[in-house]
């Protein structure tokens, strides 16, 4: 059942399409174009250099290092975040009384802006006055994320995971509540221990949720943690927390190296496209047993 009109649908679509064209497609095209250009230091002239910017990029140890950091960081965020949230969701699903209270108490970090999450943890871990930093120093750990790259990575990871726990928790809890209780009771009748019931029944049945959350968390770590990093470490020390997105910003906006920044943007676009296609192709199919 449809309406007939030649102009009305275009009028209805106009605002969305206008914004899409001006602020999405035009800049994306510009990024691709600029990635093939080499600008002189004053930004007055540029010449076509083909793929040189990309080749130069992959010769740069700092860019390859940024790839490595992004991989480690997103793996840490996904694994730690998912395990912690799954543990809490399983327990919340188990208790009869208070499950919804725990839910309310655990979902609010979702509302906290990533940059505020970064500021909170920066304060707790600040070497000279942070509460946790002082505990660590009392334990004999020379905590200093301003100088030690590993410490900085730990700090960024904790802040990023903390922000994402509520999201993971909500989806895990919904997934767990959708599992038929009869299956678990049948296993219990057969004498399966709680641990066995979890690993042999609950965990496999939960795999679509887990897989979905894994993809979402990787995308989150790749792109949405920019604010967390900017607030806590600003990519430092010495680039040890400069993930790919942060490096695009550093090189393009701070370093004003347009060619290199655009080439990095194009590489990121390819990564997003790959992740999105992956998400849409496999998530509907469900990793079901």
């Amino acid at each position, binding site marked *: *059942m*449809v*309406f*007939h*009109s030649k102009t009305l*649908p275009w009028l*209805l*679509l106009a605002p*969305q*399409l206008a*914004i*899409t064209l001006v*602020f*999405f497609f*035009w*800049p*994306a095209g*510009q990024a691709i174009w*600029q990635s093939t250009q080499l600008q002189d230091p004053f930004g007055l002239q540029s010449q076509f250099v083909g793929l040189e910017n990309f080749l130069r990029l992959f010769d740069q140890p700092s860019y390859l290092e940024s790839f490595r950091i992004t991989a480690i960081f997103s793996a840490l965020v996904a694994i730690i975040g998912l395990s912690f949230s799954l543990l*809490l969701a399983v*327990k919340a699903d*188990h*208790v*009869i009384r*208070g499950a919804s209270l725990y839910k309310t108490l*655990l*979902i609010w970090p979702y*509302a*906290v*802006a*990533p*940059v*505020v*999450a970064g*500021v*909170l*943890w920066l*304060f*707790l871990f600040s*070497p*000279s006055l942070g*509460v946790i930093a*002082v505990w660590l120093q009392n334990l004999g750990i020379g905590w200093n994320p301003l100088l030690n790259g590993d410490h900085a990575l730990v700090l960024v990871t904790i802040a990023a995971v903390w922000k994402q*726990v*509520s*999201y993971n928790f*909500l*989806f895990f809890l919904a997934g767990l509540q959708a599992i038929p209780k009869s299956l678990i*009771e049948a296993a219990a009748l057969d004498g399966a221990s*709680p641990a066995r019931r979890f690993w042999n029944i609950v965990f496999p049945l939960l795999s679509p949720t887990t897989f979905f959350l894994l993809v*979402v968390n990787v995308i989150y770590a790749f*792109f949405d943690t920019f604010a967390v990093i*900017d607030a806590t470490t600003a990519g430092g020390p010495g680039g040890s927390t400069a993930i790919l*997105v942060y490096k*695009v910003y550093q090189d393009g*906006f701070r370093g004003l190296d347009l060619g290199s920044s655009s080439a990095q943007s194009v590489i990121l*676009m390819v990564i*997003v*496209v790959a992740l*999105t296609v992956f998400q849409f192709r496999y998530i509907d199919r469900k990793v079901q047993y």
Partner: protein
Amino acid sequence: MVRQRGILDWISHGILLLGVLVVAFPLYVTLIASTQSLPEIQQAPMSMLPGSHAVENYTRALTQGSSLGSTAPVARMMWISFVTAMVIALGKIAISLLSAFAVVYFRFPGRMLCFWAIFVTLMLPVEVRIVPTYEVVSSLGMLNSYAGLTIPLIASATATFLFRQFFLTVPDELVEAARIDGAGPMRFFRDVLLPLSRTTIAALFVIQFIYGWNQYLWPLLVTTQENMYPVVIGIKRMIVGGDAVTEWNLVMATAVLAMIPPALVVVLMQKWFVKGLVDSEK
């Protein structure tokens, strides 16, 4: 029957409580720090009990701001964040409703092309086109304005899909009935579709308000003047490097203020929030 009462239940509650405490710990410390004076915070470790400077810190943050770094009053930043978040949330809902309506209820050449054009924006987040988008906005003269803060973020593939999915479930009989009664497309949209979409709109509003309030990278690019900083940028600019100079008592008060509106929205509209979150991932 599977529930073994007693010890196992207590362990579950124990683990949950521990989880809640770990998650809430940063918030607690922030609240405490926002009630202490700067010297009190600086004696490491700071006291874990509330201080007596709450009123002073919050008043100073709201009316004067920090004296170093960003010096804009936080009340101003909160207002900018509020306007931005509202415009983004309502704008996204409005233009997505319209485009979903066009795609579902009309047949016209280029329909699928439009649909795909909107879909592809999912793959072009701000993060991957930082510099060129900034150039477009600055050449349009939209830096340091509400228009620059909001309009580029209003396009939304997710919201369009959500409304499209919903419209597809609306029975054809309603359209027929409306047409027999002589209603045109816009009348049908306003009197039938819009009232039916209320719950979807509410759920999306919660998610998009938080999205708008928490935007960071975009305002970081388009605001260069303090009087247009939203609170998320302001708080970052208050941290001037070096613990000796940052006025942590004010930063912490600002952090609390910045958390209140979105947290209120999530906790008070929890039902819509969960629906919105689950729906927008479908």
